[in-house]
């Protein structure tokens, strides 16, 4: 519907219809949700860049830095990385399923993603408990304080991601998505992949380097 500004008629348009309607969209030619999530992810990139930058300064400024292989269980965390990568793959599989109107596939893959995400958190909690029981606490030295800061904040992001995936999953169970309407799934998936991407970097920096 097109209404030119010059055709504004107070008798017709005011007061209920006093906003002219244009035949174009003043926003960017991209889904608003996707635009918003990418702006948000841009801020998250800067957030983790600040953390990693601080870690680099502290590490480079320390006369000694322990070999992480001597302090951390790399094997179990490598398995956890495996779990997180699998969860990213299942999220994509779920998204591809809904695009083909395969709702059973969506439920299967999305449910598996939630389980894998929760499994990642569980393994990280197990690691924390094990470390704290052996007196490896954040106040011991810079290695442990930076370790807990970065992995802890990432863990919080994972918890938020699992909750987000679960909320979307409930909506999917209620028939809230179809091959014509799946942007809600995509937004949750983008956040989840970002969390996965950050972990790839943190795992390399903290556990292997």
């Amino acid at each position: 519907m097109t209404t030119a500004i010059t055709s504004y008629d107070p008798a017709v348009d005011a007061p209920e219809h006093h906003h002219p309607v244009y035949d174009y969209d003043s926003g960017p030619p991209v889904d608003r949700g996707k635009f918003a999530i990418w702006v948000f992810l841009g801020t998250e990139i800067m957030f983790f860049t600040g953390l990693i930058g601080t870690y680099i300064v502290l590490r480079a400024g320390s006369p000694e830095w322990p070999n992480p292989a001597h302090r951390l269980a790399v094997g179990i965390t490598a398995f956890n990385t495996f779990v997180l990568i699998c969860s990213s793959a299942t999220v994509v599989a779920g998204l591809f399923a809904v695009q083909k109107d395969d709702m059973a596939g969506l439920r299967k893959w999305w449910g598996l993603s939630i389980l894998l995400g929760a499994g990642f958190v569980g393994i990280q909690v197990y690691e924390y408990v094990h470390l704290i029981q052996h007196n490896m606490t954040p106040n011991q030295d810079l290695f442990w304080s930076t370790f807990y800061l970065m992995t802890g904040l990432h863990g919080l992001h994972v918890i938020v991601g699992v909750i987000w995936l679960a909320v979307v999953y409930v909506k999917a169970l209620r028939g809230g998505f179809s091959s014509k309407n799946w942007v809600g799934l995509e937004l949750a998936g983008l956040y989840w992949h970002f969390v996965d991407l950050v972990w790839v970097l943190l795992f390399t920096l903290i556990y292997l380097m």
Partner: protein
Amino acid sequence: MSEHPPQFSVKKLWILLLVLTAAEVGYGEIGNRHFYDQKLLLWGGLLTFAYFKGYYIFQYFMHMKYEGAIVKGNVWFTVPLVVYLMIMIWPDTASNDKLNYEIAHQLDPMTGEIATIIEGSRNLVNEEFRYLYDDYAVTHPGAEIHGEGGH
């Protein structure tokens, strides 16, 4: 949203990421045991693995490869910010001699002297603080703190 983005093989990408992760962990294990002091080789290799894993997640799982200029521009604006941040912190990371503060040392609150002496680290601190190590050597003749250390 109703348009279908280009689809790729999730299975192939999944396997590729797992292979890269396994290779990275293996490289890290070997490197930490056999060439831990060759940082360029060890860290360069590990970061290369991390880069490719991140690249595939970003380009395919987050399907940035298929996005238009607006979404791409939304993300790439962070690149100059990241570069700016790195430039700002570079003076502190490029050389320990240029550090404004000795981050890892515990200073005695009463004397301001270094309370914790780490063996072999004398040459890693600012020159103006090195006399503290020398003083420590006089008062603790048995301690070996004059090692050259090394970056």
